[in-house]
């Protein structure tokens, strides 16, 4: 019987079905929790789904690539979801066009601040050069950040970790920080979330306000562009 259970586990743990099911169910629970807690920032569904699944993988000693072979179907949808941002952008095009000047100004200041602050802080903290380089593109969406990391000959896997941590922290911090600063303009709040915390910040922005979500999506897309031009330049200037 025990052998039977073991061979069943071996079979299931190698199939995408198990990991896809676990990803969806654990997320559904963290999402329900987030709703029940009225979208409290600390009830961030990404944060809780990640650590719960992480503990599960640790307990069952499942390597991450085995998990990812199933979960990649969900991961794949990140691309189509980026394309889908065209819809809220289209529906809010008037408010977006009316805000083009402040958007471009905030884009330049935000992109430079995101890259320069992390490089200067990492240098001040005495981190090794390759770690500093790997952290530099942390504010852009994972695929782009890892590409930048490669062109800098840094460690793309460390960059991916920095990107996810940045996104989760940004999504948790943004609402309390903006409320504390007394900023009620959801265009500005969303735009800041997208610049500082890419897609996870955008998901958070959509939870709070549709206009904030739209501006966050735009900010994320523009930041990916500006950062891939800026970071290699900034790094060579700041790390001389």
């Amino acid at each position, binding site marked *: 019987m025990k052998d039977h259970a073991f061979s069943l586990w071996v079979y299931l743990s190698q199939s995408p079905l198990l990991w896809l099911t676990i990803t969806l169910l654990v997320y559904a629970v963290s999402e329900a929790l987030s709703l029940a807690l009225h979208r409290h920032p600390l009830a961030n569904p990404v944060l809780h789904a990640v650590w719960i699944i992480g503990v599960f993988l640790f307990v069952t000693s499942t390597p991450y690539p085995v998990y990812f072979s199933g979960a990649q179907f969900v991961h794949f949808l990140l691309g189509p979801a980026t394309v889908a941002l065209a819809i809220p952008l289209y529906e809010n095009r008037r408010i977006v066009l009316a805000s083009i000047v402040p958007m471009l100004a905030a884009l330049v200041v935000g992109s430079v601040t995101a890259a320069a602050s992390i490089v200067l802080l990492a240098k001040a903290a005495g981190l090794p050069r390759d770690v500093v380089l790997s952290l530099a593109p942390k504010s852009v969406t994972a695929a782009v950040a890892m590409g930048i990391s490669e062109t800098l000959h840094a460690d793309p896997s*460390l960059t991916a970790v920095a990107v996810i941590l940045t996104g989760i922290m940004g999504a948790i911090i943004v609402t309390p920080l903006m409320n504390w600063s007394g900023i009620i303009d959801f265009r500005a709040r969303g735009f800041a979330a997208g610049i500082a915390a890419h897609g996870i910040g955008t998901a958070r922005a959509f939870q709070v306000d549709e206009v904030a979500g739209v501006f966050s999506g735009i900010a994320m897309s523009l930041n990916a562009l500006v950062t891939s031009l800026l970071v290699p330049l900034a790094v060579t200037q700041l790390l001389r």
Partner: protein
Amino acid sequence: MLASLGLILLCQLIGEAITRGFGLLLPGPVVGLLLLLILLLVRDRFAIIAQGPLRNGGVETASRGLLNNLSLLFVPAGVGVVEKLDLIYAHGIAIVLILALSVVVTLLATVLTFRLVSRLFGHEAP
């Protein structure tokens, strides 16, 4: 629904082909976003292309379905963090702290610039 998803994937596919083909720094899906946006704007001008997914809010519904679950899509990549915990341990809590500090500084710099320029140019929220 399927046709709408197909249209979204087609936009992404063309976006990937353009960015790879021309060696652009833009991510493929961002070009796909622009293509879909242009398609919707063209539809408003020329009723003739309002067919299939471009009719009766088809592509709009499918897109909303994806965006309503945007957080879920980051979970598989996020779980990758646990595999790299030794990298985090190696440099203590320093990495997490400076990332958090940088996020706060970036959020404030961006939001304050947006508000300041907004007020200077009179681009207030309608």
